[in-house]
């Protein structure tokens, strides 16, 4: 009996091994270099051409801050920004070590003494500023979505609500963040008064401006998605007499998710663009402020540092979009849909 089991296992493995072998045989090895070239080679060549053109043009432009930086100078600033970040972190660690030693001494001399624990108030590094920007944009974006999705669903379900809100939506949609910002700043200064504020005013102002500018695409797309649900599915819901809540959860939301996410991705993209402008003017300590400070600073390194910020902003924007795409894949019921 044992031998029979063994041979069965062997047979099983044999077939598996054979099918794996066959799979490898199915691969056309002669095509592999071509695939690698088109997936990696072509983008790499394009990037190299871009860098060469950039370097060539930059060397011919002379500004008040010296020659326009090329790729090499910008890379030099990337390294120096990383070094500054590490140095600042080391200083911070040293500060806390000193504080602890001092407090321990005080306590040893007098156990009843009140020790002071002070936060570190050193300057924000480039990476701290990136984090601030991401937190700010996400705050604005999440609040915008929390408003836009329910309003969009209501507009999609009811032609009355749509007729009521559509003129307002269309009017506010094209307004520039720079127009909102003064109003938001003044209102926040007037309303958000507290001796021990949980958030900086500049953070609140920036996040609200982001929210005001990025809720519209989600709202409009959700409306379109909800109002274009297959009529047969609505009839199913009517025959089943689903309550409004079940109707929304089981039918409206799943069928409008693709449109909704298309809107959310546009919204987050707009939010990220708006944020940089808002931070510049509101002085929220993020990437926008970094660019502004370097512009005001006007040292010979400033242009290269701003360019580092430009690339950082671009790459983070790209990553945020990828994040949304992954989220869309996770919640989408149609796993075969082509999402790009």
């Amino acid at each position: 009996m044992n031998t029979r089991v063994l041979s069965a296992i062997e047979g099983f493995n044999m077939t598996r091994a054979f099918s794996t072998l066959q799979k490898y045989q199915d691969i056309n090895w002669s095509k592999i270099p071509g695939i690698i070239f088109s997936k990696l080679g072509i983008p790499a060549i394009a990037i190299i051409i871009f860098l060469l053109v950039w370097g060539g043009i930059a060397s011919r432009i002379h500004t008040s801050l010296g020659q326009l930086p090329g790729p090499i100078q910008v890379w030099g600033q990337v390294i120096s920004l990383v070094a500054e970040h590490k140095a600042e972190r080391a200083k911070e660690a040293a500060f806390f070590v000193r504080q602890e030693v001092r407090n321990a001494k005080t306590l040893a001399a007098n156990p009843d003494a009140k020790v002071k624990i002070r936060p570190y108030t050193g300057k924000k590094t480039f990476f701290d500023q990136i984090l601030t920007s991401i937190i700010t944009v996400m705050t604005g974006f999440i609040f915008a979505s929390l408003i836009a999705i329910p309003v969009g669903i209501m507009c999609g379900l009811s032609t009355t609500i749509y007729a009521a809100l559509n003129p307002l939506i269309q009017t506010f949609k094209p307004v520039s963040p720079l127009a909102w910002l003064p109003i938001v700043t003044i209102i926040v200064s007037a309303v958000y008064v507290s001796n021990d504020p949980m958030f900086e005013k500049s953070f609140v102002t920036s996040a609200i401006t982001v929210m005001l500018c990025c809720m519209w695409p989600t709202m409009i797309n959700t409306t379109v998605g909800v109002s274009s649900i297959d009529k047969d599915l609505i009839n199913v819901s009517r025959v089943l007499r689903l309550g409004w809540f079940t109707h929304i959860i089981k039918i409206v939301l799943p069928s409008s998710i693709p449109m909704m996410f298309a809107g959310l991705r546009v919204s987050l993209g707009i939010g990220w663009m708006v944020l940089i402008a808002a931070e510049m003017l509101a002085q929220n300590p993020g990437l926008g402020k970094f660019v502004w400070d370097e512009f005001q600073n006007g040292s010979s390194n400033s242009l290269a540092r701003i360019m580092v910020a430009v690339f950082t902003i671009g790459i983070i924007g790209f990553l945020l979009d990828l994040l949304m795409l992954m989220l869309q894949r996770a919640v989408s019921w149609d796993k075969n849909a082509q999402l790009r």
Partner: protein
Amino acid sequence: MNPYLDISQVSIEFPTASGPFKALSDVNLQIGKGEFVTLIGHSGCGKSTVLNIVAGLYQATTGGVILDSKEVNEPGPDRSVVFQNHSLLPWLTAYENVELAVKQVYKGRPKQEVKSWVEHNLALVHMSHAMHKRPSELSGGMKQRVGIARALSMEPKVLLMDEPFGALDALTRAHMQDSLMEIQTRLNNTVIMITHDVDEAVLLSDRIIMMTNGPAATIGEIAEVNLPRPRNRVELAGNEDYNHIRAQVLKFLYERQTKPTENVA
């Protein structure tokens, strides 16, 4: 005795840009409990409109529908519909699609009972093997089976079927018709089914309602089908009564109702 389902003096007008369009005019039909009735007619003659009025999805302009001594005013699970294009929710599995209906109709039933009732209905349409698949993974016939299971699971007073097999190939359709007859012998539902397939109508029905062409369509002729059950399509092919009824329906459809102009009364 009052009929189980009474459609009386039903007319319906749809508003259009060029004034109201009268789709149905004075439709009268009485259906007994457990009767299988098919509506047949050319495309656009208002068969689906009749069905939708019984379902409560449309409101008749004049006249009305009484089911089991109650007037029909709105859609409800006592008149469950099998839609032509199955209309399963694509994000739910076959099981979940039926479960949604069962949970809605039998609120507060214990979980185990819901589960066994869903499974029972899927077994009835021979879909137990694929009940955890999504509609996109099922063939057209299988999707329609799930649609039927969903409608049956609500134990409707009348089952409404809107060209349920219209989108299926001939072999699958024959298979589905056999399944439907088998279910019908077991459950003896009251059924109104729309079709434009003459063979299907004769094979399945107790009565065939032939509709005139629109606009202002109405019932043109009614054929009683008194063939003994269970019916077998192969044996019926040589049956004299079968061929007689078939010829009657064909004549109505292709001689009396070919041109819409002939319909003007």
